[in-house]
């Protein structure tokens, strides 16, 4: 009997091909949108993760200021050269430690200028952050110690200040201090957080401290851990060392932060994950709207086919068989829409991830959930019209015009 009913439902759907298609469209769009958005979101998350892990999962970022947001961060006690030295010498597993100081400044070349971030650091920074010198050279040991007015720039800065020309060997003024450009970095493009990683000017640490900032403080220290060492252990060691050096009472909180990339990666992916859920939820609303569309059309169907229902009841159809017939029709509509929606969603998100250079990760879970939801919508929104059909009085239904 169920096959006969299914066959009847399919015949009915074919008979009203255009209407059936339009009814399914709501579910198709809903399911497609849920799958496309969630798949794109997952692609973004995994791209963020892979970008971060490309930076090396053995990178630690040591910065002054407690782990809270707000103005306190800016008044945090900076690190000193002695702190840096202690990290380098006393913590096992520290391969490189690159001190940095940062200042936003206007860089001027001829009649062009560009506001960018000036980083005073050492050559270790290049290695720790994965920069390579494309043209020219990096600083020498002597230049760093002496704080010579030299700089290495990123390609964005070069394009802004020397459009179409060679920056190498030219002079720029950083906060009225003339600096010779001795190197141009290879382009790294945008970070996954959308930052332009080529928009930077590197100067020797001493030069930035003395001539741009006017003290000997050190800001953030970038640390690479030996591949053989445990990053987490090294992190704890650095924390212990700095607490001791900064004389923090045992019950007081750290006034500095040591973050590893794992931590940043998980923060980033929880942010993109939240966004994905939000988009998925919005798309789910359209699935609901699609369900209401099915209910609407099924109600119209029942009214239109009142005489047919009366005939069926008269020739001996049981109420539950009529109910089943209309329910099956609604479910066939919604699941067919669901299947097409899954195909559209996967196709769309494949195209989308390719276009955005993100990995295409099929989430079998969301595909199943979206499809199951569409089938459920057929049951839920098909039930009311089906019950209406089954409860018709055959005498009145036969008389219906």
């Amino acid at each position: 009997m169920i096959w006969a009913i299914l066959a009847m439902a399919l015949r009915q759907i074919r008979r009203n091909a255009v209407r059936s298609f339009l009814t399914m469209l709501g579910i198709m769009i809903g399911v497609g949108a849920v799958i496309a958005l969630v798949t794109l979101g997952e692609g973004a998350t995994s791209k963020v993760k892979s970008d971060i892990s490309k930076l090396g999962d053995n990178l630690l970022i040591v910065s002054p200021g407690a782990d809270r947001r707000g103005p306190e961060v800016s008044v945090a006690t900076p690190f000193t050269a002695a702190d840096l030295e202690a990290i380098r010498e006393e913590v096992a597993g520290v391969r490189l430690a690159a001190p940095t100081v940062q200042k936003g400044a206007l860089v001027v070349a001829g009649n062009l200028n560009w506001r960018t971030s000036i980083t005073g650091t050492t050559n270790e920074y290049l290695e720790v952050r994965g920069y390579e010198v494309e043209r020219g050279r990096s600083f020498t040991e002597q230049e760093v110690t002496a704080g010579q007015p030299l700089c290495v720039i990123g390609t964005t800065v070069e394009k802004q200040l020397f459009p179409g020309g060679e920056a190498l060997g030219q002079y720029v003024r950083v906060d009225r201090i003339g600096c010779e450009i001795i190197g141009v970095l290879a382009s790294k493009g945008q970070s996954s957080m959308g930052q332009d990683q080529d928009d930077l000017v590197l100067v020797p640490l001493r030069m930035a401290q003395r001539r741009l900032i006017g003290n000997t403080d050190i800001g953030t220290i970038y640390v690479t851990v030996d591949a053989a060492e445990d990053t987490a252990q090294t992190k704890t060691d650095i924390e212990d060392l700095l607490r001791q050096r900064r004389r923090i009472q045992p019950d007081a909180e750290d006034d500095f932060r040591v973050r590893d990339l794992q931590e940043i990666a998980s923060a980033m992916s929880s942010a993109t994950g939240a966004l994905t859920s939000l988009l998925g939820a919005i798309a789910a609303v359209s699935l609901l709207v699609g369900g209401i569309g099915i209910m609407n059309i099924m109600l119209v169907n029942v009214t239109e086919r009142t005489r047919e229902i009366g005939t069926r009841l008269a020739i001996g159809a049981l109420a539950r068989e009529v109910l089943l017939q209309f329910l099956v029709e609604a479910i066939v509509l919604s699941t067919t829409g669901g299947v097409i929606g899954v195909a559209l969603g996967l196709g769309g998100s494949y195209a989308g991830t390719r276009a955005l250079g993100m990995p295409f990760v099929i989430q079998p879970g969301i595909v199943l959930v979206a499809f199951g939801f569409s089938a459920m919508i057929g049951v839920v929104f098909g039930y009311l019209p089906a019950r209406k059909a089954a409860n018709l009085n055959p005498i009145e239904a036969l008389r219906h015009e």
Partner: protein
Amino acid sequence: MTSEEPVIQLVGVKKVYGKGDALVYALAGVDLTIRAGEFVAIMGASGSGKSTSMNIIGCLDVPSAGSYRFRGAKVEEMTADERAMLRRLHIGFVFQGFNLLPRTTAIENVELPLVYRRVPTAERQRRAIEALETVGLGDRLHHVPSELSGGQQQRVAIARALASAPALLLADEPTGNLDSRRSAEIMQLLVQLNQERGITIVMVTHEPDMAAFASRCVHFKDGLIIGDGVPAEVFGPPSSSAGGAA
């Protein structure tokens, strides 16, 4: 079954609609026995109770009072599903408006009651074709109703009623939508089915010309039977037949 066994037995059947002052007796106490093999025409003006009695005989409705036995079974004690099963197995319906499924071929329409009886596909098709051949539409199996004339559509409907080999064929104004020539053809088909196959037929009509084809005529007025006999007795001489329907 012998021709003496009653198929339909109504005893003191009343049907009441409405409540209180608006109470309407559609049937005011009807006794009627129809035996197997009879061809009965139920006559009466609109509001006479003939449609209500038809609905009760067809197990689509139950009496408010009194008793209805269909082949000995008490219909008023049955649930809706039991009555549906009874219709499915024993009663064929022919309606004034044909009530074929639109955009569905003749053979599929005829198969419909067999689908509900869970007859296997091959057997279903064989019986549907046979029924359509019986009504003279063996060459119209795959036509949809809109491709058939009114007379042909009513033949499909009769074939549908026949396909399940019912004990009772109920026809509600079967010629109401047809011209007189088609009407006569349909009536001849019913007479033929009644005589050759012994199918019990109960037909509601308000046209004395159609009732004249039946072997027995029951005349309703104001919810009561006021005449029961061969058509000529009920209407008198054919010349005054129009008066009987008024």
